[in-house]
């Protein structure tokens, strides 16, 4: 839908006080080994409707508009040359430090060069008022560069490549300091305090020597299906920064936690809030698509959807740390989204609750470090994941335990889900990990079926759902017996990943957390030891043995599994080991305490989509268990 460029010549005017001959030099981008930054070098900003990844060098390499699951405008993350980016930074060598403003999602990157120091502030303003009130663009991203000392030179490089890099969009100048990309559907406006020129089609560049205290502001605004809105500039932009930071500080004030790892807890909850989609209450699994689980491999999936299997961990994180509003909104979304498929559940839903998600390969992008293919959409739709039922019913239970109401129609739907579990728990399914090679009687799925029925019993007993608890209790006990008999391998003294198979699966470490089996039960103790031996890499765990999923490239260790092990240790009463393990795992988060899906055990690099909600929820769950264990030990 974007207007394709016409290859207009470079404007005659100079860039600032530079001659046209000097402009091509500005096309040079900061050097990156093999063209890509490590995943850990990214930070995330967002407005709870979409998110952007900001590289350590000041380049925005991932942004989808208007919503997180829409097509990208910048995707240099997945193709350095074709993906598109928006860099505000410095061109020469620089020492780079970054942090979030305390208790906010406002990113501050500091470039120290030989000429001086620049501080770059990145954020996405939130709709803090009645959303359709004032005339404001549908989405905005703001970047403010300020010279802190000396006379540093600021460089700007803007290359929007809508539709996953398929379109080389040609911005046209609009008014002073503004450039527009527009067609009959979309309006993208760049306002820049640094004069820009277009040395070639689809690319704007500029630079400016700043004096100490000088600020340059950049605003990227987006509207769809409406006349474009040109937002206020100048000091109004600075006020937006204050308002946005204020929103996040108020969010953090509601977090009820004062135990160990508090900073990382705050960052994880902010990250989960960023991954939530305010227009519906959904929480997406990650901000990105197709970051590989093994560099050069083909395990590259689109995670910008909501997996029900994650829902219990996410909701638990919100509610246990005092964020009732967010937890309730997420539960309401779960109930609304699943309405279309009830009494059955799909594995994943879009942020608006749709299930017609098809997976397509995006040929226009080469993939992160040439890890092809790049995907849009996800092929997991249509899979049977029985654990989803347990996740949804356990969400209802956690909500009820925190004083939340479950309405009549929601009760009906939850009863329907529980009845499906009663009828279908004996079926093989695709399981939590969506492995190839046919369906199995996955142990975790069966445990979650038990969890679904157990939650139903508890909901009935609490009076939150009007139904006969005894009916569900009977079936719950049958499922439990089946798991204890069929998943237990007496010879190896371990619970296996699936009935009749002997592979190990780290997800069975969640049995104590789900209330299925005590952590100090000898069977759990020996299972934990077997998993540590077979799947462990230091504090990390693989989710299952190499090549079990049929892929040649071995994937990394699964971050959430490491935290599940720490959760297990805390529940077993070994809080020192749990604390040590959480600390060791956290050391692999990036400098901003953000986590991807996996870690490469060979070099410690982050792998997979980023930032990953399940990793952060896993961390929060482990910290919660640790806190409980320490409180218990201290007799509190």
């Amino acid at each position, binding site marked *: *839908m974007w*207007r394709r460029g016409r290859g207009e010549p470079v404007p005659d005017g100079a860039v600032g006080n530079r001659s046209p001959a000097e402009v091509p030099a500005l096309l040079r981008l900061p050097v990156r080994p093999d063209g890509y930054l490590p995943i850990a070098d990214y930070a995330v900003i967002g407005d709870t409707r979409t998110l952007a990844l900001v590289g350590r060098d000041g380049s925005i390499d991932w942004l989808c508009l208007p919503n997180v699951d829409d097509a990208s405008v910048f995707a240099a993350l997945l193709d350095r040359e074709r993906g598109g980016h928006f860099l505000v930074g410095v061109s020469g060598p620089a020492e780079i430090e970054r942090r979030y403003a305390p208790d906010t999602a406002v990113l501050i990157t500091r470039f120290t060069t030989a000429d001086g120091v620049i501080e770059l502030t990145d954020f996405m303003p939130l709709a803090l008022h*009645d959303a*359709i*009130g*004032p*005339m*404001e*663009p549908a989405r905005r991203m703001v970047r403010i560069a300020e010279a802190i000392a000396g006379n540093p030179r600021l460089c700007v490089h803007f290359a929007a490549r809508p539709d996953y890099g398929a379109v080389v969009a040609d911005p046209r100048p*609009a*008014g*002073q*300091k503004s450039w*527009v990309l*527009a*067609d*009959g*559907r*979309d*309006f993208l*406006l760049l*306002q820049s305090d640094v004069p820009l020129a277009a040395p070639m089609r689809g690319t704007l560049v500029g630079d400016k020597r700043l004096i100490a205290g000088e600020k340059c502001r950049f605003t990227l605004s987006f*509207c*769809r*299906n*409406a*006349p*474009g*809105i*040109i*937002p*206020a*500039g*100048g*000091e*109004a932009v600075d006020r937006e920064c204050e308002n946005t930071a204020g929103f996040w500080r108020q969010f953090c004030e509601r977090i009820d936690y004062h135990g160990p790892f508090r900073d990382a807890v705050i960052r994880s909850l902010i990250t989960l809030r960023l991954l939530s989609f305010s227009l519906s209450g959904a929480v997406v699994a990650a901000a990105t698509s197709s970051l590989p689980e093994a560099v050069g491999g083909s395990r590259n999936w689109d995670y910008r959807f909501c997996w029900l299997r994650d829902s219990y961990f996410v909701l638990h994180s919100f509610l246990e740390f005092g964020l009732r509003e967010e937890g309730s909104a997420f539960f309401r979304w779960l109930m609304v989204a699943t309405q279309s498929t009830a009494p059955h559940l799909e594995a994943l839903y879009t942020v608006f609750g749709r299930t017609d998600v098809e997976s397509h390969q995006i040929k226009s992008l080469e993939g992160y470090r040439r890890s092809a293919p790049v995907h849009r959409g996800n092929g997991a739709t249509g899979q049977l994941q029985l654990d989803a039922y347990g996740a949804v019913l356990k969400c209802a239970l956690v909500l009820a335990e925190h004083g939340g109401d479950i309405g009549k129609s929601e009760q009906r739907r939850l009863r329907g889900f529980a009845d499906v579990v009663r009828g279908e728990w004996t079926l093989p399914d695709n399981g939590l990990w969506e492995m190839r090679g046919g369906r199995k009687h996955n142990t975790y799925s069966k445990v979650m079926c038990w969890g679904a029925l157990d939650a139903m019993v508890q909901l009935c007993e609490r009076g939150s759902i009007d139904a006969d608890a005894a009916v569900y209790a009977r079936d719950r006990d049958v499922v439990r017996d089946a798991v204890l008999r069929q998943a237990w391998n007496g010879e190896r003294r371990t619970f296996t990943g699936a009935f009749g198979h002997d592979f190990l699966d780290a997800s069975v470490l969640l049995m104590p957390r789900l209330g299925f089996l005590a952590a100090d039960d000898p069977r759990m103790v020996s299972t934990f030891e077997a998993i540590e031996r077979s799947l462990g890499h230091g504090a990390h765990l693989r989710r299952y043995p190499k090549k079990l999923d049929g892929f040649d490239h071995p994937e990394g260790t699964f971050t959430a599994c490491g935290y599940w092990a720490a959760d297990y240790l805390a529940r077993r009463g070994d809080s020192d080991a749990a604390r040590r393990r959480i600390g060791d795992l956290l050391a692999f988060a990036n400098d901003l305490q953000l986590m991807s899906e996996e870690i490469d055990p060979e070099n410690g690099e982050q792998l997979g989509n980023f930032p990953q909600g399940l990793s952060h929820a896993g961390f929060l769950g482990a910290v919660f268990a640790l806190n409980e264990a320490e409180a218990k030990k201290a007799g509190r």
Partner: protein
Amino acid sequence: MNVIGAIGTNLAALALWGFIASAVMATLLEGAQLSGRTRMSLPFLFGAFVSGNRRSAVIFGYVLYLLGGWAFALLYALCLQSLRLHSVWASGLFGLVMGLAHGLFLIAVFLPLLPYIHPRLATDYDGTAALARLEPPGPFGLNYGWATPLVTVFAQALFGVIFGLGYGAAIATG
């Protein structure tokens, strides 16, 4: 009967067909917007004349748009009555011509000049401002998408045809 008297006699038909023609035109314009052919929204632009609040602008805009539709219906009716076009097809053809002329005026004169009178539209000469503004439509409204002139002229022509046929039928049947 004089022109004013004739209008008075057919006031109900004027109101009805003015409303129907406006509704069809609005549906076409909104449909074109949703399908990504143009970002033009005349009701929103009209509403933004009187309010800087998006919600109010949309509500006022549609009220103004409907009132405008009736005003143009009255103008068309006056022309039809004064030209004594009493056949349905002649009225429809007249409506088509009037609509096309109206549409062309809109895209060639009204939209490009609108930023000079609209309190919330930016112009191409503006710099950074303290308040948010609306993107100017540009020549022929092309800033809002390549299909804007076509959709706008077509919608106005459709308004003219529908009103001409409906009102013409009312006149013809006495």
